[in-house]
Structures are given as C-alpha cells and as structure tokens.
C-alpha cells in the first residue's frame, strides 16, 4: 500500500507529485494566512528551539570528544584547542572499542543480511498467495511485534547455553535473526503486495518457473523495499543492548553498546576519562547519522508507515 508505493516511487514521480500538490497548498496558505495567532508564534519558537536542541547535543558531543577530561570538567562550554584525535585513539586502543566496533559491524551486517534473505521470500509468499492459511501465518508473525524482548531473555539464555552458543557472536547473530522476523516479514509483505502482478504473470506465461519469476522479476523490482528493510535492521541491531548484554560475557565478544556500558562502569573505579567516553559515544552515534543522511527519507517512511498499518 502507501508504504511501499512511497518507498518505490522514484525521484521523477516525486517531483511531479510535489509539483502538482504545490499549488493548492499555496492557495490554502492564502486562505488561512490571516489567522496567524500568538499561539502559533509561540509554537514556532518552541519548535525551532527543539530543532536547535536536537542539533546542538550532537555538535556538543563531537566537540567534547576532542578535549581532554580536565578541560571538559573545568569548562563544559569550551571549544577544543586542537583537532587532535587523541581521545579516539585512546578509546580505540585502551577502551577496547576497536574489537567492539569490529564485533558490532560484523554482527550487524551479517544478521541484517540473513534476516532480509530469510524474510523476503517468506514475505513474498505470504503477500502473494492469499488464503486462510497464509493469513493465519501472517497473523502469527505479526503477534511477535507485541512481545517485549525481556520475555524471551531467560529462555534464550538457557537454550543457547544448552548448545554452547552463549558468549558467542554466532549465537547473538542467530538470536537477532529470529527476533527481527516479525517486523521484517510484516514490512516486506506490505511492500510485495504493492508491486504489480502483471510482470510476474507475463514472466510465467513466458515459461519462467515460480522461483525464476521471483528471482529475476520480483526481486529486482523490490530492490528499494529490501534495501529499506535491510538498513532498518542494521540500525536496530547496531543499537540493540539488552540481548547483547545478557548473552555476551567476555570482553573480546562485546558489541559497542555493551563495551560502552563496561567502559562507563570501569570509570567508577579507575577515574573518569570523559574525553574517551565522548569518543566512544561518537563511534556509536555517527554511523547512524551517516546512514540517516544517506537514506533519510526512505527510513522515516519505512519506520513510520511500515509500522503504521
């Protein structure tokens, strides 16, 4: 439906659409333009203050990452004297953020890839073959959206312990794939349903097998939606904390959020290294910012409308 339509729509149609809707909006602006009230003025000020706050914290965080602990303490508003990345180097070497980053990157990419690779065919099937059975299956997947993760925390720990997959990144990857199924399947079903059937029918008439049709016709058409699903998983696996905290015990297996927690807890004993901590925060936040700048509109639509239906 709308989700996927919007995800799919390419730049040219977008310009056409906005171009068309521009005119009525301007007219509407004129019709109600006079009733700009004080309330609205206050609202505008508050809104922009809020926007500024949302930018300021990030800038502040990056700035502090270039200063040393003592100067941060004495003047939290100060600017760095140089762009020496010494904090990043310390965080990278002494704070074990290097291993953690590597673990996070590999876990995130592998689990997101496997999630989408498994969820896409399932979503395709459930979206295309509609009968009572597949509808029930779809419901079965959707139910998972409502189960808070702490419910499965203990059983997962016990189960993985049985097969020696606790404190293992392989185990964590498998868990992430399972836990991401409901959302990914749900998002992709809506997306596949929005794709036109005609091309697939034509391919079938030309003698393509059902799998061939999916592989050569539908998948290339669905690239946009699948990329969105993949990146949404990257974001959620990159930030996932509770499961990683429970399932990983040794330092060399930590993912970034867990490493950050342990870094903060060490400071209680070894004295604060705020510069290093800020560098660590940057390592967690900035990749998300990069992804957001790259694919922003797609992500907001996938996250809002995908969940919205």
């Amino acid at each position: 439906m709308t989700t996927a339509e919007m995800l799919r729509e390419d730049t040219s149609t977008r310009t056409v659409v906005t171009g068309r809707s521009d005119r009525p909006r301007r007219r509407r602006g004129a019709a109600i333009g006079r009733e700009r009230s004080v309330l609205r003025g206050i609202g505008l000020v508050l809104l922009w203050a809020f926007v500024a706050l949302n930018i300021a914290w990030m800038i502040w965080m990056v700035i502090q990452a270039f200063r040393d602990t003592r100067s941060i303490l004495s003047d939290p508003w100060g600017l760095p004297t140089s762009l020496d990345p010494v904090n990043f180097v310390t965080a990278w070497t002494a704070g074990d953020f290097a291993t953690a980053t590597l673990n996070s990157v590999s876990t995130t990419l592998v689990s997101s890839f496997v999630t989408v690779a498994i969820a896409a065919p399932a979503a395709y099937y459930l979206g295309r073959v509609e009968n009572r059975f597949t509808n029930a299956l779809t419901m079965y997947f959707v139910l998972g959206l409502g189960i808070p993760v702490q419910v499965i925390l203990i059983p997962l720990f016990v189960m993985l312990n049985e097969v020696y997959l606790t404190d293992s990144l392989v185990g964590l990857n498998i868990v992430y794939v399972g836990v991401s199924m409901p959302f990914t399947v749900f998002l992709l079903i809506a997306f596949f349903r929005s794709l036109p059937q005609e091309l697939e029918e034509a391919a079938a008439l030309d003698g393509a097998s059902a799998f061939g049709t999916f592989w050569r016709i539908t998948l290339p058409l669905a690239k946009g939606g699948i990329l969105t699903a993949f990146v949404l998983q990257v974001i959620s696996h990159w930030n996932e904390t509770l499961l990683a905290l429970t399932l990983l015990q040794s330092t060399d297996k930590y993912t970034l959020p867990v490493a950050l927690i342990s870094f903060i807890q060490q400071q209680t004993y070894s004295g604060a290294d705020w510069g290093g901590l800020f560098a660590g925060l940057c390592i967690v936040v900035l990749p998300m910012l990069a992804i957001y700048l790259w694919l922003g509109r797609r992500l907001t639509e996938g996250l809002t409308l995908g969940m919205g239906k």
Partner: protein
Amino acid sequence: MTQTAAMPGVAAGRVARRATRAGGNAIDNARKKLFVPFVGPALLFYSVLFVGPSVYAIWISFHKWAGAGPMEFVGLGNYVKLFGDKLFLQSFGNTLLLLFVVGLAIFVVSFGLTLVLRDMAGRKIARSVIFFPHLVNAMIFGVLAGFVLNPGGLVNTLLGWAGVTDPPAWLATENLFPLIMVMLTWITTGYYTTILMAGVDRIPPYYYEDCALAGANAFQRLRYVILPLTWDVFGTCAVLWTISSVKIFEIIWIFGGSTGQGIPPTRTWSTAVYTYVTAFSGESIPAYGMASASAILSLALVSVLVVLLRRVMRRDAIEI
C-alpha cells in the same frame, strides 16, 4: 466408478470446472510449491527463537529455578510473590508511569508540533532533525544527561551565568526518574510527530479551504477536521507506544553515566530492568522463575492494553 459412469454429464462438468480453476491460477499453483523453501526458514527461525522461548518463559514462570539444578514447580507462587515484592511493585509502577505519563506527554507535544509543522516553511528539515534521536541508542542520551546535569556541567554553568547560585541536585536519586521521563519524551517525540504528520498530510487541502469559507476558527478546524481524520493514526501511535514503552531498558540502565555502580538505583527501575537484574545481576542467586513471571506480567500488560485500545479506538478509518 459406476457412479461416475452413471452421471457423465455432472462428472465432466465438475472436472471441467476444476480444470478452469486450476488453469486460471497456474501461477498460484506453481507458487504454492515454494511454500517450504520460501516460508520454511523464516517460520523456523521465528518459531524456535521467538515463539518457542515465549512459551518456555510461561513454563519457567511457574517454577522456582536458579538456572542450574532442578526446577521446582510452584504454580502461581511466583506471581503471588511478585505482588508482595516492593521492588517489583515500584518497577511496575515506573513502567506504568512511562506508559501513561510519558505517553501522554509525547502525544501532546507531537500533536502540537504536527500542527505547527503542518504549513510551515522548512517543515521537512525540521521534521528530519527531530526524527533522528529515534535512530540513536537511548543509552547515549542517558550518558549525556550525566554530563549535562552534573554539578559542574552545562546546565549548572548556564544557571550560574543566569545568577542561580544554588541549583538543584539534578542527579540525586529521587530526581533521576523524572529526568528519565523528560529525556524519553524528548527522544521519542520526533518519531511520533513523523507518524502523525503522515496522517495529517493525507487530509486534502480543500477541507481546509472549506473551513475557511465556512468561517471556522483554528480550534473548530482542529476539532471537526483534523482530529476525526487522523483518529486511526492516533490509535496506531498508542499501540506502538504501549509496545515500546514496556521494553525500555538501556536509558535507565546507564542514566546519569558515571553515577552507576553497575546496577541503577532501584527507584528508577522499570520491569525490564527488574527482569534483567533478578535473573542476571550476579549479586544474588538468580531467580529465573520470578524474573520470567515479571516479564510475563509485562506481556500481559501489553496484551490487555492493546486489546483495549483496539476496542476504544475502533472507528472506521475515514477513507479520503
């Protein structure tokens, strides 16, 4: 055989009908063979790693179990014990506060922002900026709060410049939870604003023109046009917040940054924190049964509220 022979016409007709039906859905039939390879893996992963554990959690919640050693069946004992446990009641109360108070704050702020954003210059940029915190680990904001609010931090320096010499002890234990609530409102508002805006944007402009012609004021426009037409979006948002508020863990776990000695002060606990600490803190004998029971109670809370919300918010979405 004889029956078929006796009624050739009927049989033939039936066969023919079946043939056409099958022929019409040749693609569907070919697709159906893909069920096992296509849906199988997803179903397996999901069932084994999500549904299975959920059922197992219910089973564990009826037992007294330290993780190792035998499980002792106690029936509903764990649940009874939970309702006598002050710590759990406090955690549960906190979760309810997050759910209702923060939820209400988010909706008021988001809706306000949506109304301001609706026909404002630069709306896309503003919306994109306030959405971003949703993509950041909430933990980060917990850590930053520690820096901003510590005695020599940003806020107190600022207050100092403004002439306040005796600022409150922001990070005192009794202030932490309200601060967490404020922080959560901040970082979640953008997400819900985006959803609400998607709903408000669906309203065609001629409704507003009609309002202007009919001489409706801003409040009437809100009451008779915007609210009814975005009602279903509100319902969705409420369900989403119910589900996600019950899971809140990271920001509480690390709130205040360097103040933590491993486990956050009990006054700030949510049920997710309670579950984790009861099972994995390593400071006392793990009580898997109690921990599971508390998790199951949060699941029950979600289920009840989602069902109620669907009831209350049920109203046919108005097709535009």
